[in-house]
């Protein structure tokens, strides 16, 4: 055996000992895979609503390394259906509100019973629904794993009422004229509300992730001269932020505040100009720091690590 061969064998032996992989965390990864697939299914459902079905380009490159597309095109690809879905959602929301205002009694029932339900079913928040094996519907699959943002968006706008503490829940039901089957009606209404809110929850979470990415990479992008790219991305995100502000996602006061701050910051980023970009970036960073925007965005997008995220 030559010295070279001996050395190669030694190198291979030592390389095997470098950072040896432990046991694969099977369950943890399985949960994340299921969750990622659920999100993809929800995205696909949303895309099909907006007529943006995945094309051949999305299913290529299993083996070959994908070539990088122009960044602005990628943002537009995701941004356009997102914006279209939001517009559709806002439209539906407004139509629903119009209908509710024509029937004040039904509207009062829904509000009262919705609150009571959140009190009577404290264990069944969105994040804690039992995961179902069937991943056909967006509602089922998205409910499969805990999500801090979803949980935050699930918070009712008024104080929760516990089921057995007597007064408030009963009083609310009585005031709204509910009968003995109010519980069933309450659950149905809450389920409907949940289903209606689902696209907004998903969109809000994704949106915060994208804004976070933009803000974190902003100084480096500007330094490297990608100012126009940053401005285009910021403008896209600004449109989405404004749509979210008009959507039910903004019913939560904390999220509304965050969206308001993002609107101001993104408006600044969208008007970045090559001539005075350094001042603009400093101003944006000051705004981000003063309002703890990144911290709040991280809190809003925190959760178990996902595949591809």
């Amino acid at each position, binding site marked *: 055996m030559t010295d070279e061969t001996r*050395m190669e064998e030694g190198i291979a032996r030592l390389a095997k000992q470098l950072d040896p992989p432990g046991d694969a965390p099977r369950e943890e990864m399985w949960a994340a895979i299921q969750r990622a697939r659920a999100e993809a299914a929800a995205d696909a459902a949303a895309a099909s609503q907006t007529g943006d079905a995945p094309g051949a380009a999305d299913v290529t490159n*299993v*083996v070959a390394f994908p070539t990088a597309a122009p960044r602005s095109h990628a943002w537009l690809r995701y941004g356009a259906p997102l914006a279209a879905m939001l517009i559709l959602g806002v439209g539906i929301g407004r139509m629903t509100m119009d209908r509710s205002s024509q029937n004040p009694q039904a509207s009062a029932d829904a509000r009262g019973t919705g609150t009571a339900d959140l009190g009577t079913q404290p264990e069944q928040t969105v994040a804690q629904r039992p995961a179902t094996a069937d991943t056909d519907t967006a509602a089922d699959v998205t409910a499969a794993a805990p999500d801090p943002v979803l949980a935050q968006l699930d918070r009712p706008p008024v104080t929760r009422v516990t089921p057995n503490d007597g007064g408030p829940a009963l009083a609310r039901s009585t005031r709204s004229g509910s009968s003995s089957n109010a519980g069933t009606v309450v659950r149905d209404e809450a389920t409907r509300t949940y289903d209606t809110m689902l696209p907004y929850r998903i969109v809000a979470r994704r949106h915060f992730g994208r804004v976070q990415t933009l803000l974190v990479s902003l100084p480096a992008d500007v330094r490297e001269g990608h100012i126009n790219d940053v401005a285009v991305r910021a403008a896209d995100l600004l449109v989405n932020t404004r749509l979210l502000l008009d959507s039910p996602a903004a019913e939560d006061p904390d999220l509304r505040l965050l969206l308001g701050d993002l609107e101001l910051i993104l408006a600044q980023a969208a008007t970045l100009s090559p001539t005075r970009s350094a001042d603009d970036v400093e101003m944006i960073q000051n705004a981000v720091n003063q309002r703890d925007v990144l911290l709040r965005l991280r809190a809003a997008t925190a959760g178990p690590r996902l*595949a591809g995220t």
Partner: protein
Amino acid sequence: MEIATETTDPVPETELIRQVIAGDPAAERRLYDAHVDRVYRLCHRLASGDSGLAQDFTQETFVRAFSRLPEFRSQSKLATWLHSIAVSVSLNGMRRVKRWHERERPIDDAVDVGAIPRQAEPDLKSRLRSAIEKLPETHRVVFVMFDVEGYTHEEIGEVLQIPTGTSKARLSRARARLREDLADFAGDWA
């Protein structure tokens, strides 16, 4: 030549794939259990021993695999196909990670600013780790798969879609580069 799986599933692979495509969640789990350990090991090695990244890459591999399984034409074994995705996902992921790291400076660097540089010789393991990192990507993959994870050249050829001879040539070059980089330690193996 086939890449081995961890468990022997009584259901034939084609039947298992058919069940997964039909939406059978139990079949999905069986497929996952049969392949996850080797996929994770490969991802872990390609992620330079970063468990978090390995986990991400493994998850992404299976997410892609499940979504693209209807396109799988059984021209190769499922394991080969899965490992191809794993390599692709890991290499793309590591490129992103490297780009990201290039923008960062570790906080430890600031401590050394203005200080006298330390002359301490890094030990053999860290030198080897760094030498492997420095290998060209195409060579590193072959080295990791053959010398570290024990794939054959035929398996590597199928996974990377390269001729067996190319795999051998890349391994040879990778080994030569490592020998050069670790020449200081040549006596240790004598």
